[in-house]
């Protein structure tokens, strides 16, 4: 089979340019709250507010840095009303560390456990940290990885959405 490089590059460029955040159906699968209570994922989303979902783990330093930075912004009152859900992808090796770490950090986010990584897989998140912003039941922004300053971009995004929803 013949193939030219131009076609491959064109396909790559096309893919990157058109990959849009069009997920309108959120996964309808169970997730565990930090006290073990299982609920359907769709039921934990507050449809009246912008929701930020952060996939993280206790062993992932960039994830913790990102959540620390977001908590700092919340404490400073720099973010308008939004719901932040931190979904731990810790498996059985480290899942027991989630509650003590969260408590010591004083994070005020809603914490959920995705021990089997079913929710992470359903969102097709490959690596963590991975952030998803949901507005009116649709994914409007996704970001893989964390570099210092990413929280500023996220705040801008949340505030923009809040303004457009509540002008």
């Amino acid at each position: 089979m013949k193939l030219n490089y131009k076609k491959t590059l064109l396909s790559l460029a096309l893919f990157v340019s058109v990959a849009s955040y069009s997920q309108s159906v959120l996964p309808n699968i169970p997730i565990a709250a930090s006290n073990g209570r299982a609920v359907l994922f769709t039921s934990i989303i507050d449809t009246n507010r912008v929701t930020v979902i952060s996939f993280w783990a206790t062993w992932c330093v960039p994830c913790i840095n990102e959540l620390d930075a977001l908590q700092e912004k919340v404490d400073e009152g720099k973010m308008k009303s939004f719901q932040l859900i931190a979904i731990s992808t810790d498996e059985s090796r480290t899942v027991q560390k989630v509650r003590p770490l969260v408590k010591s950090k004083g994070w005020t986010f809603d914490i959920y456990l995705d021990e089997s990584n079913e929710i992470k897989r359903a969102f097709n998140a490959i690596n963590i940290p991975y952030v998803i912003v949901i507005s009116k039941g649709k994914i409007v922004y996704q970001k893989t990885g964390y570099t210092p300053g990413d929280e500023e971009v996220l705040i801008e995004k949340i505030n923009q959405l809040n303004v457009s929803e509540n002008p």
Partner: protein
Amino acid sequence: MRRLSIFFYLLLPVSLLAQIDLGKYGNITGSFETNNQLYVRDVKTNAVLPQDRIGSNNYLKADYRFQKISMGMQYEAYLPSIEGYPFFLNDAKLVQKYFSYQDTKFGLTVGNFYEQFGSGLVFRSWENRQLGINNAMEGINIRISPTNNFDLKIVYGKQRKNFDKSNGTIRAVDANYQIVKPAEINHERSLSIGGSFVSRYQQYTGPDPAFKPTVNALSGRINYADVNANFSAEYIIKSKDEHTANQQNTNIGKALLINYGLTKNNVGFNLNLRRLENMGFRTDRNADQSLLLINYIPALTKQQEYYLSNIYVYNAQALGEIGGQADLYFNIPKNTKLGGKYGMSIAFNYARYHALQIIAQTPTSFKSKFLSAGKQLYYSDLNLNVKKKHSAKFTSSYLLQHIYYNKSVVEGGNYENIKSTIVVAEVLYKYATKKAFRTELQHLFTKQDKGNWFGTLAEWSYAPHFSIFASDMYNYGDDNKQIHYYNAGGSYTTGPHKLLVSYGRQRAGLICVGGVCRLVPAATGLNVSFTSTF
């Protein structure tokens, strides 16, 4: 050319799928990942130089979701697989597909799926692409929740074995009953009990009439949690299971896992205790390495993030170990003398694992005291992490770690035991709203094995798109050969798409997971990876 052809066919459907907006008829999502290595000759490290100087692992996953229905597939191409993987493949295939219906009271998945019972110590099917592990089930998975406090899972099928599937079959059931169910998510007391039964059948055609083709495992567990405390315990018993990986040991398998956690104000405490005895469990009695694992036996130690802390890493001893770990996390509050304006976080971890106390032994079995530790120390690890934000621009982190590593047990062979101390200092300087510079200095002290190491890393980032880095691990303490393991590269990220390019040396070392280790050879060359979610 074949490589490019497959790559093109991986990308083309993704490009098309990403454009399809099905509106009220659901949506299509997915991900694409490609990891590529171009190997070069490196006499200094004895790096591998495969005949085909390229390794390329590629994954395309796509899911269609409509109301309560979802279906999808995973296509994988190894062109060929990158060095250090637990298998060698030079092929591409649609390896996984599934159909699923999920409702509050009922869930059904047909095809490939991942599942876990309890902590996974009795059953876990999972995927980790970096480690080359994928033991997805192929069969049927049913979830029944007739009331809001009872869940039943039924699993039947075969496990994935690279591009093939297992010879043996798994039949399994798990039940969970919530005795006290919190009215509010995340806020109230919760108490539940559960149990699992996992049965493996693999036909036996050998000469021993007493050899049974079926191995059964039974587990019971309890979980309690309230606002400030949590406790869980799990006990597993497994029938006689002689196989290659346990050297044909005939002991009944037993495992006990106890977890306790306590939190108050800005303090968190966690304790894990575990005893294992002949708990290796596979779908095929001849399987080795990380293939066809039915259960999951992680090392319950601190998962390290720094390079030099990942040289001497413990691996759980499924045949027999007893020990545990304790974690203490606390934050010194903001606006205190020690905490300063931003506070300071401190984390302490101690882990220790011993051999079982053996009281009688034959070549294929042993008797041991249940809750006594043997004299032989397998591993101990003491960690102190401190992180302090000094100002809006300046944050520093420190690690002090001391390790005792029984190399003969963990890696096999006959070696001197290793005592090592590691110190790390990390500084983050965020000099503009979206620009930051980060550096690490690391040192590993040891008089054994390959002696001392020095490590350093420098990284510059410009959020949200750019990052570049350079790092080096210098093994200057090795009398035979002093080697710099250097790496440099950069990444470009836009939303859920990330391109990473780097060049450097990868040291030979062990990758241990789920109670199994394998040696990853040294390699030098160019790495290009791209990940994307759509």
